[in-house]
């Protein structure tokens, strides 16, 4: 091959690459249907998943991020070092240079410190601060280097920085209240407008630090809490993507050549929680009997409508996590065994109880109805009481005045976050301060050890012990990880399901439309 043809080849390759890039950067508007509306867009001030979903990675970026294949990779930080200083550990982050906020201000270490100081300041009263209680201080080393000082090993810090609420960096000196309705960050999208009850519009950040990203010019997030309405809107082309579809709607669009469904497990576990301090649930035999009486496959068939749209689980962990241990086989569906255990526990004829179900979460209400039916078959007379969300929070979550409830609990890939609240919060007298009312001193010691080491294998052993222990004690009945079902136009490309409750808009593009 002579020199000339070689140059030509290069030109062709470059042109091809350019065309590929062009088809990805072709712009366009994406209209997304979301179930729930944010109650504010400053992630330091709100615990709402609906806010997080829009803000995280899109408007405000954290130092690190999770990828679709569950790896942590750099975002506003390019690298970090961990150094052990006895009782403390230093996490030093080197920040990306040339990054600019939506308001034109350059991104520096001061912004990182401001963000976390605000998050941790008791005066801010952030609902998202408690996870970071082990962070002692944040120091600015130079304009592009920042250091987190943690108490002990601070092992969960890296995972939290990539996934927790309130970690998206905001510009130093910004007003907390103003960010609620007009967020400013470094992300690929800028906030444009919010019409309460209707939609939020984001527009392309033309000065984004990653060249060529994002691909879309504009994203409109419409709030359509009614699933039938969002399905109709998708079919009519009024929206291009419906986030978190229910199975009955996903079934309907599968046969539509203009639409497609993308599914994958999410970081959520549906549970049947029991009040472990209230008889008869204070008896581990009763709790085990209930676990045996529940037919997870039947529940998945009736709620997800397709076996592959839900994964049964046996403990407080998502199969997405590298720390996950499969404990589904610990309690196979076995009504005979359930009856025998009830008899052993002193309830040969069962007992009467009530399951409290949270309105408007139809998914849990449906599950609760099936569980009640299954428990009736082993002799437990199970009544249902539907409480609207506010009353559920008050009665079940706050006052612990309940027998059983069906709800979903967030499970993070980082295991420390899963167990911190439900298994470590105790009252002065040593009893549990969480609604499922379970305490175990040995378990609490294990959890402390899990936080105090940075050795992956050691942590994996510890958290495997934790999962086996709570499963043996049948603290609750873990039911399933419902899969996330995303319905969209066939021309929408680049969507991937993340292991956290975020709609990652930066990678989405239109193709062939």
């Amino acid at each position, binding site marked *: 091959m002579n020199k000339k043809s070689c140059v030509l080849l290069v030109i062709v390759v470059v042109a091809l690459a350019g065309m590929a890039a062009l088809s990805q950067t072709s712009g366009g508007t994406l209209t997304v249907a979301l179930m729930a509306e944010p109650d504010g867009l400053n992630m330091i001030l709100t*615990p709402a998943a609906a806010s997080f979903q829009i803000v995280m990675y899109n408007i405000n970026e954290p130092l690190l991020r999770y990828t679709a294949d569950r790896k942590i990779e750099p975002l506003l930080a390019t690298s970090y070092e961990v150094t052990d200083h006895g009782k403390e550990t230093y996490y030093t982050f080197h920040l990306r240079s040339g990054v600019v906020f939506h308001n034109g201000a350059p991104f520096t270490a001061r912004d990182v410190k401001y963000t976390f100081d605000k998050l941790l300041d*008791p005066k801010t009263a952030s609902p998202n601060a408690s996870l970071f209680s082990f962070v002692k201080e944040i120091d600015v080393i130079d304009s592009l280097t920042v250091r987190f000082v943690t108490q002990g090993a601070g092992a969960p810090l890296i995972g939290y920085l990539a996934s927790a609420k309130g970690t998206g960096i905001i510009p130093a000196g910004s007003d907390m209240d103003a960010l609620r309705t007009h967020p400013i960050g470094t992300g690929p999208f800028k906030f444009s407008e919010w019409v309460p009850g209707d939609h939020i519009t984001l527009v392309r950040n033309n000065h984004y630090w990653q060249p060529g990203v994002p691909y879309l010019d504009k994203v409109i997030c419409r709030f359509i809490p*009614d699933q*039938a*309405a969002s399905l*109709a809107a998708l079919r009519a082309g*009024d929206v291009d993507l419906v986030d978190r579809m229910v199975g009955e709607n996903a079934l309907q669009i599968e046969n539509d050549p203009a639409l497609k469904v993308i599914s994958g497990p999410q970081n959520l576990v549906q549970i049947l929680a029991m009040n472990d301090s209230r008889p008869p649930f204070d008896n581990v035999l009763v709790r085990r009997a209930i676990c045996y009486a529940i037919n997870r496959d039947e529940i998945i068939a009736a709620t997800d409508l397709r076996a592959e749209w839900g994964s049964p689980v046996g403990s407080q962990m998502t199969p997405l996590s590298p720390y996950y241990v499969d404990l589904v086989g610990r309690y196979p569906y076995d009504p005979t065994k359930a009856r025998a255990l009830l008899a052993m526990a002193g309830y040969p004829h069962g007992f009467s109880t009530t399951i409290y179900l949270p309105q408007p979460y139809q998914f849990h209400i449906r599950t609760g109805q099936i569980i009640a039916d299954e428990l009736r078959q082993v002799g437990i007379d199970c009544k249902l009481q539907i409480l609207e969300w*506010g009353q559920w*929070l*008050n009665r079940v979550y706050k006052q612990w005045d309940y027998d059983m409830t069906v709800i979903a609990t967030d499970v993070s890939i980082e295991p420390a976050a899963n167990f911190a609240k439900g298994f470590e919060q105790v009252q002065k007298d040593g009893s549990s301060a969480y609604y499922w009312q379970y305490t175990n001193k040995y378990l609490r010691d294990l959890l402390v050890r899990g936080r105090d080491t940075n050795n992956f294998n050691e942590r994996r052993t510890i958290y495997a012990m934790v999962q086996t222990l709570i499963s043996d004690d049948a603290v609750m009945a873990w039911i399933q990880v419902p899969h996330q079902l995303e319905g969209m136009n066939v021309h929408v490309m680049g969507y991937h399901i993340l292991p956290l409750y975020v709609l990652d808009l930066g990678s989405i593009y239109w193709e062939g439309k």
Partner: protein
Amino acid sequence: MITYVFRRLLSLIVSCFLISVLVFVVMHVIPGDPAQIMLGTEASPATLSALRVQLGLDRPIYVQYGAWARGILTGDLGESLRYHVPILGLISSRLVVTVPLAILAMLIAVVIGLPAGLYAATRRGAPGDYGVIALSQAGLSIPSFWLGILLMLVFSLKLRWLPAGGFVPWSKSVAGALQSLLLPAAALGLIRAAVVARLGRSSLLEVLGRDYIRTARGKGVREIVVLWKHALRNSLIPIVTVLGMQFASLLAGAIIIENVFYLPGLGRLAFQAIGQRDLPVVQDIVVLVAVLVVGMNLIVDLAYALLDPRIRLE
């Protein structure tokens, strides 16, 4: 007449005051703390009490009532606990859905119901009369939300002519907005058409039986003139009354239809605000609707007096 109006206005104010106290007390004794709902399952007790102070929920209840009532009287409806935006804007953004919905529904009711009723009255005992009677009986027996579901089934799911719910904002497309209102308005309107038809028929029959109509006929006035000039005007009074009341009740009473079609209307806002314990929003809506209902009653009574000189106000 003037003293009567004055007395009615006075009692309107008393009624509204009582309603405002009632709804305020009810909203504050309901279990479920707005701060807790906002924080969900992620709150610590310290965060919770901080948020309660921030929202002003720690003050004594009469102080809160005073602040709220003073605001309303000075035209300040307050701020939503959930959205942190002024409630006035929130309510008016919902009224642009609910008021056109109610108007459209009433239009459908009148355009279909009135001619049907008048037709039946003039053909008394004929098959057409029985047809109208049967249809209006059927209409009165069908729940409007079920009619809505059936309409959605046929026109959205099967034929795909109209959206199955949701609302296209007026600013985006007027035709789109009307399209999203058409099915819910039909569900509400067709039921009310039955009411109008039935009422129109019996009211016209009653008027046609009166002496002056007989006199007019006796004098040889043409039937069409008798109908239009003499009978119709007088038989409209009860219909106007009912329409007025229906319109007022639709503003907050369309909750179920707004839920069926997912319309961001006033009723849905109230429904959601109750669930989220967005106290000031619920209070404002209830008082607003109560004022409208009570006020509409007053207007209807006055209109009655003006249209029918035989009615003497106390």
